């Protein structure tokens, strides 16, 4: 039975919104004076619900949050923006304190956010290793014992006594990362959302994480990338509006998250008022619809049905060369494909491919074939390009649709089928020879 190394118990974090003082002593004194005389608050926001009041609005970034993390566990923390993930991390790294409840931690906790914190450009690489290590909580003796290792890992041996302001940005990050990587915390926090830096560096963070996990240490992983969470985490929790919304296996939690984040009801989007329709003065998008082959607007299909995405747009000035374009995403945000009616990318011949348009109203329709999607939710970004390259209309998540399993492809295998598409593909199995494992 493994030990509990983090226990979050009924934790809440309250922020105050609205009037938290004006930030200037004179104005604050004015405000108190007005309050004392029973006058209106001269500094309240005019557009607030009741202007002139002194009320402060409260906002609970986290509320009644309780969960446990066991030793050696890799816990994924997912949730939409504003769900409280960052606040939770801030509490765990002691940057701020909870309003209610308590968090108990066993062992040293470190976060890969802190990479390079406190680096001073005038100091040499070696001096910065000591400074940064101490900021992260190591003692001088600990740093000294790991110094050679850190320098070797960073790969900046030759320049270790050069001020870091002369380093390239790559060297700088490598050195900073080397210090963090040798911190050897019992608990590691990785916040992919906030891990700015190049893709290479992010990859390094994830790589380090995998290695730490193998060593049996505990990791909290915050990410928007469901693929990474799925690959790395044994268990996941989902936060929603500051509360624990779901706790379970990674797969179940991700499924819950996808379901919550996805608005499956957008079968069509129409802009009745052309003045606020997306586009410019000459091209306006009028509507985007999901249609079945009987021209009905609907957006729940079985995997054996074909259906259409239709964009309607008006052209007011003749002479533009326009391309209709769609991007397809899964509900979890995986970019599946993009498609447009350029002549070289269509299966058929679209008479308006690579052509200039006259004035009028046009419809572009694309067909998704049957047996193409896996089950799940998808959404479409609608785009119209001018001169093939320049987007003049770009509508994110214009329509959504859901694919339900018809059972057509489930006659033999009935368990979970992964992936974002499930096309029927050609298979051929032949016998190579008769009953001999020797293929020569």
């Amino acid at each position, binding site marked *: *039975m493994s*030990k*509990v190394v983090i*226990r979050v118990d009924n934790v809440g974090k309250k*922020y105050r919104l609205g009037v*938290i*003082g004006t*930030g*200037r*002593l*004179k104005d*604050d004194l004015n405000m108190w004076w007005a309050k004392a005389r029973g006058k209106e608050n001269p500094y309240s926001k005019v557009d607030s619900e009741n202007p002139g009041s002194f009320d402060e609005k409260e906002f609970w970034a986290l509320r009644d949050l309780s969960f446990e993390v066991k030793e050696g566990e890799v816990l994924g923390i997912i949730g939409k923006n504003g769900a409280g993930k960052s606040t939770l991390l*801030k*509490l*765990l*790294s*002691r*940057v*701020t*304190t*909870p*309003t*209610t*409840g*308590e*968090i*108990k*931690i*066993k*062992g*040293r*906790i470190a*976060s890969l*956010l*802190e990479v390079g*914190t*406190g680096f*001073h450009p*005038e*100091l040499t690489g070696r*001096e910065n290793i*000591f*400074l940064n290590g*101490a*900021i*992260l*909580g190591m*003692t*001088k003796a600990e740093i000294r014992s790991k110094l050679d290792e850190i320098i070797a890992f960073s790969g900046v041996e030759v320049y270790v006594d050069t*001020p870091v302001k002369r380093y390239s940005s790559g060297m700088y990050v490598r050195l900073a990362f080397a210090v963090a990587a040798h911190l050897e915390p019992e608990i590691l926090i990785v916040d992919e959302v906030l891990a700015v830096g190049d893709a290479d560096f992010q990859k390094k963070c994830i790589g380090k994480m995998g290695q730490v996990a193998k060593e049996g240490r505990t990791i909290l992983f915050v990410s928007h990338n469901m693929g990474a969470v799925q690959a790395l985490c044994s268990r996941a929790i989902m936060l929603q509006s500051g509360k624990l919304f779901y706790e379970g296996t990674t797969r179940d939690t991700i499924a819950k998250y996808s379901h919550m984040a996805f608005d499956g009801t957008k079968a069509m989007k129409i802009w009745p008022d052309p003045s606020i329709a997306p586009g410019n003065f000459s091209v306006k998008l009028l509507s985007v619809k999901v249609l079945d082959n009987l021209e009905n607007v609907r957006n729940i299909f079985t995997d054996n049905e074909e259906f259409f995405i239709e964009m309607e747009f008006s052209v007011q000035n003749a002479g533009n060369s326009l391309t209709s374009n769609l991007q397809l995403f899964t509900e979890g945000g995986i970019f599946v494909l993009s498609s447009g009616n350029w002549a070289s990318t269509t299966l058929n011949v679209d008479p308006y491919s690579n052509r200039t348009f006259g004035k009028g109203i046009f419809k572009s329709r694309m067909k998704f074939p049957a047996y193409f999607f896996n089950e799940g939710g998808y959404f479409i970004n609608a785009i119209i390009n001018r001169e093939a390259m320049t987007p003049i209309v770009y509508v994110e998540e214009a329509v959504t649709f859901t694919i339900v399993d018809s059972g057509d492809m489930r006659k033999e295998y009935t368990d979970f089928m992964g992936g974002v598409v499930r096309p029927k593909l050609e298979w051929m199995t032949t016998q190579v020879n008769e009953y001999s494992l020797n293929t020569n």
Partner: protein
Amino acid sequence: MNKDFEEINVEWSLVIRPKTSWFDWQIADIWRYRDLLMLFVRRDFVSAYKQTILGPLWYLIQPLLTTVMFIVVFDRVAQIPTDGAPPALFYLSGLVIWNYFSTCLTKTSVTFSANSGIFGKVYFPRLIMPISNIISALIGFGIQLMLLFVLLLYFYFFVGVQFSLNIYLLALPFLLLLVASLGLGFGIIISSLTTKYRDLANLIGFGTQLLMYATPVIYPLSFFEGKYRSLIMINPLTPIIEMFRFSILGVGEFQVSSLLYTIIFTIVSLFIGILIFNKIEKSFMDVV
């Protein structure tokens, strides 16, 4: 193994809970991070030397030019007495202490605003920052003190001024501790208040300038009589500077009572400073 049993066996190394106590000062934590404290001092030291043409010479130029200025304005033009001491030594001895105080004050008064980046990312006892500032400021003080002694020797050998160093010089470390604590106390009070009121930061610049004129830097305490004298006696720095001057030049006046007043004043302001600082420290990241 049942759950209760396991519960007892777990020894939490850290418990994060809402901090409500005014007196939760985490002295042990500051001690644990002492290596960091010294590394911050080292950082200040090294970075002060690099990247400037004259390096530590700046520590000499500033008091020297100021002293020359004071001689011209306050000695020659205004003819304010210096208790019979050579004006150059008189002004410089006051400036050395004053500079240390004002450096402590101005450096620590921006603790939160200057370090919000690092404070927002990683935990360490926040008091480490201002404490490292007052220790770093000792470097400049040491250089200026050396300058004062060189000037003293010059006056002794070449001008024929009487040798006046005396036993009270042994009190210097104690006086320094008082100045540092006073600077730290006021500095962290101001830094805590500026997190809420940014415009207070403007006050510091000319506030310290004005305060210098309320401190016996350019005049001796004996210059004043009556109510002005008691006004200047309110300034806790007055006995410190007068005593320092006495230990070096043999001029100046100080009583045990006024020194005692300074000690109590210092302890109280440092205490209030740490109280407010600790309170602000907890909510600082939510306000920025």
